[in-house]
């Protein structure tokens, strides 16, 4: 009888197992102990909905490359600095920063630099017990051959998506918020740096102003945790001057009915609406300046 019950429990346990290799309970617990927070007063579903809106930093890298901007490694974070990030919060936000740097090096097909950033990501992800979602072996193999760019971009993007989904499933969205915030801040930093050297590039300047929408989302996400978690509150405070600078940006939308045509079996829709960013040169400088100082504090 007892054997039978034990078998049933074992069977149930096996059935309940996830297919991916999760870290051991102890490792996971240890990694997240310092990030334990009281539940935010908002539902997980709302947090996930807002998080998924944050655009991929790859979009900025593609924009820069296609506008003819040269690759500049000096703008990126030093891949050797992983050891200075001590808390899980620092690790998560810098994981996001390295993620954007990796995407940038990939888009520009700078294989050697990509390997450096990949190693940094592996180190931080392992320390956060989320390294199992990153297929480092395959990514490294793909990164050494530029003809694999599509697969490389797909796999790195998918791995980061999986990490964020896992953290949200585990009700640890605060780390997911920091990863996405770091990734976004690094993309903004790169854009500001390039825009400073190309003051006539209106597309880049407009793209900076448009980040007001993402800034609002990030501040909203941080606010959900700020009362229950002092580290999240500190990041919110750190980002506040940038949010204030973005607050002066105005975005005007004008709606017009879209039109569509059928091309090779695909429906191709032309958006006839427009959006216009209204931002003074002083405001742009203010955004760039706050971005640099916040990033400097974060990357140390």
């Amino acid at each position: 009888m007892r054997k039978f019950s034990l078998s049933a429990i074992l069977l149930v346990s096996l059935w309940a197992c996830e297919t991916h290799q999760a870290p051991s309970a102890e490792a996971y617990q240890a990694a997240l102990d310092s990030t334990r927070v009281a539940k935010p007063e908002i539902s997980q579903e709302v947090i996930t909905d807002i998080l998924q809106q944050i655009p991929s930093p790859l979009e900025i890298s593609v924009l820069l490359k296609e506008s003819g901007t040269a690759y500049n490694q000096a703008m990126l974070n030093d891949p050797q600095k992983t050891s200075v990030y001590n808390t899980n919060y620092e690790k998560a936000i810098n994981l996001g920063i390295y993620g954007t740097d990796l995407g940038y090096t990939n888009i520009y097909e700078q294989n050697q630099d990509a390997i450096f950033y990949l190693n940094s990501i592996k180190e931080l992800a392992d320390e956060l017990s989320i390294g199992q979602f990153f297929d480092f072996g395959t990514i490294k193999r793909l990164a050494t051959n530029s003809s694999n760019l599509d697969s490389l971009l797909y796999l790195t993007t998918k791995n980061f998506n999986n990490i964020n989904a896992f953290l949200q499933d585990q009700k640890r969205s605060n780390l997911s918020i920091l990863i996405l915030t770091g990734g976004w801040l690094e993309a903004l930093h790169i854009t500001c740096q390039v825009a400073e050297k190309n003051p006539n590039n209106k597309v880049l300047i407009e793209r900076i102003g448009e980040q007001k929408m993402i800034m609002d989302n990030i501040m909203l996400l941080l606010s959900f945790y700020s009362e229950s978690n002092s580290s999240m509150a500190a990041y919110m405070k750190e980002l506040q001057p940038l949010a204030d600078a973005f607050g002066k940006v105005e975005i005007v939308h004008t709606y017009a009915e879209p039109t569509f045509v059928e091309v090779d079996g695909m429906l191709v829709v032309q958006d006839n609406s427009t959006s216009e960013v209204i931002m003074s040169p002083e405001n742009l400088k203010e955004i760039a300046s706050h971005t640099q100082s916040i990033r400097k504090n974060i990357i140390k």
Partner: protein
Amino acid sequence: MKKVFVTFSFLAFFLFAGNVANAQCSASELADNCITQLGDGFNFVKSFPVDGEGGGKNKIEYSYVFAKGTEYSINLCTDGDTADGIVVSLYDSNRRKLTTNAANGKIFKGLRYNCNSTGIYYITFTFDGSSTHCGGSVLGFKR
């Protein structure tokens, strides 16, 4: 003994039923495999599982910030060659319906959107005569 047998049978039934339900719709797998459907030059952004739970769920929604000057591709994958009645619709931040893959009397397996207005867009999946209520979708972009 009888009590244990009944308890075990009860547990096994629910677990087995859960497994069968999962096997019915491999939405995440369909979404992941849909990457190959993105056209030339498109970069993968996100995959969207579309699991209508056998008809129990009639709308699945995701959202993303589209950027001006960027072309987005939303591709749909099912177990078959058609869209199987899965309708993907795009709404702007004011919840104004902009487009759908149901046009010209048919349901396309995806759509491309040349964005000219940066903002939050809502991508919804609904079902119109779908036999499986199951599919996957991917979002890609190119400049």
